[in-house]
C-alpha cells in the first residue's frame, strides 16, 4: 500500500516538474519564466523527499530558491520587464532547439533503458544515518572532488571580498 502511494506521488511530482519546465518557455515574462523553473526544481526536490532522501530534497529546495531568485534579479537588471507587460517571447532558434531536445531525449531514454540499475534497495537507512553516510562519502571516496570545489569557492569568496574592500586603494 505504502509503495503504491509513493509511486503515485512520484508520478504526480514528475509530471508537475515537466509541466512547469514546459511553462518556462510558454510565459511572456522573464520573472514568470524563472519562477516556473523554480517550481519545476522544487517538484524535483519533493521527488527526493518522497524517495526518502531527506538531505538531498531539502538541499535541492533550498539551493534552487536562492539560485532562481538571483537569476530573476539579474535578468531584470539587464532587460527590465515591468510587471510582465513586455510580452517577451521566451523561445528562439526553434528548429535547432527542437532538434537538440529530441536528440538529447533519445540519448537519455537509451541510457535509462541500457544501464543496469542493480537491485532495488530493500531498506532505506534513516535520515540521520543518511547524513552520516553522506559525510563519510564526501570525506572519503569523493574527498578530492569536494575539497577541490570547496577550496576553489572559498578562494573565490576571499578574493571577491578583498577586491570589494577598498582599504588600500581608498580614493577618498
Amino acid at each position, binding site marked *: 500500500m505504502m509503495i503504491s502511494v509513493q509511486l503515485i506521488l512520484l508520478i504526480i511530482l514528475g509530471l508537475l516538474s515537466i509541466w512547469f519546465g514546459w511553462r518556462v518557455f510558454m510565459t511572456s515574462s522573464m520573472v514568470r519564466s524563472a519562477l516556473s523553473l523554480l517550481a519545476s526544481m522544487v517538484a524535483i526536490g519533493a521527488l527526493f523527499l518522497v524517495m526518502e532522501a531527506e*538531505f538531498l530534497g531539502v538541499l535541492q529546495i533550498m539551493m534552487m530558491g536562492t539560485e532562481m*531568485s538571483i537569476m530573476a534579479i539579474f535578468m531584470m537588471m539587464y532587460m527590465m520587464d515591468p510587471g510582465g507587460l513586455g510580452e517577451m517571447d521566451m523561445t528562439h532558434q526553434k528548429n535547432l532547439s527542437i532538434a537538440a531536445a529530441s536528440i538529447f531525449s533519445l540519448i537519455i531514454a537509451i541510457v535509462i533503458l541500457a544501464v543496469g540499475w542493480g537491485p532495488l534497495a530493500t531498506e532505506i537507512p534513516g535520515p*540521520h544515518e543518511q547524513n552520516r553516510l553522506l559525510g563519510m562519502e564526501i570525506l572519503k571516496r569523493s574527498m578530492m572532488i569536494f575539497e577541490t570545489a570547496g577550496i576553489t569557492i572559498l578562494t573565490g569568496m576571499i578574493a571577491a*571580498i578583498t577586491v*570589494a574592500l577598498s582599504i588600500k586603494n581608498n580614493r577618498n
Partner: protein
Amino acid sequence: MINALLITLLFIAGIYLMAVMERWSLSGSLQWAGPARSFLRLFVQEEIKPRKHDTVFFETAPVLFIAVILLVIAILPFGKDLVLVDLATGALFINAALVYIMVSLMMAGWSLNGVYGMVGGWRSIAQLIAYSMTVVMALTATVMRAESMFMGGIVESQQTLWNILYQPIGFILFYLSAMAIAFLPPFDLPTADGELAGGAWADFTGLRKLLFRLGRSVLVLTLSVAVTVLYLGGWMGPWLPGFVWIFLKTLLVAVSFFVLGRYLPRIRHDHLLEYHWKYGIPMALLNIFIVGVLLIL
C-alpha cells in the same frame, strides 16, 4: 496530543505578543487590544486588486509567505520532547524555508505592477539573499559543535556552555541576520512605510494583507525561537519546566528585536548590503574557523 495543544497555545500567545510589541515599536504605546482590532478590520476590509496585476503571483504570494513560516515553526522544539516534526536535517531546513520568504516577497512586489511594490520586492530579494548567507554560515558553526542537524541535538550540545558564549561572533551575526530576514526596523527596507508606502505589500488589502501581517508576526516569533534554540540553550534552565524557559527566552529575544528597532535609524539600502557582503561574510568565515579550532583543541 496534549503536547501539540500546549505548543499551539504558547504559539498563539506568542504571536499576539509579537503583534502588540510591533505596534509598540512603531507608536511607542502598548495597545493590548490593537492587534485584535487590526485583525478584525483587515478581515472585513474590501479587497482591492490593482489593475493589470499578475493573478497567479498575487494570489500565491501571501499564502506562500505564511506557509513557509509555519513549516519552520513546526521543526523548532519548544521543550525536550515538544516538537511537532523532528527532522534530521532541521538546521538546513530552517534556511531552506526562509529562502521562500524572499521568493514570496518578490512575487508579491512584482505581481502588483506598481512602482512601490516593485522596488520593495527587488529590495527584499537583495536583502534576503545576502542575509540568508550569514544565517546558513552561522548555523553551520552550531551544527559543527553539535555534530548533528537535529534541533534537539544542537540544544543538548550546549549543556556545558551556551553557544552565545561559545561562538559569540556567530550569535551576533545570526541575531542581526534574523532581524534583516524578518525585515524588522532598522532593516525594514522591503516594506519601509516612510519611503515606499508599504513596499512589497503596498497594494495588498483585506485578507491577503492580513496573511502578510500575521505571517510577519509568526516570522519574528519563529526567528526568536530559533535564536533561543541555537544560541541560548533552548529549554535549559533551573526549576521551571523546559517549555516555560523557551517561552521566556523567546520573549526576551523578541523584545530586544523590537527595542533595537525602535531606537535605531533605518539603514540605507546600499550600506545594508555593503556591511553584509564586505564584513558579515568574512566574520562568518572567521566564526566557522574559530569554532573548528575550538572543536579540535
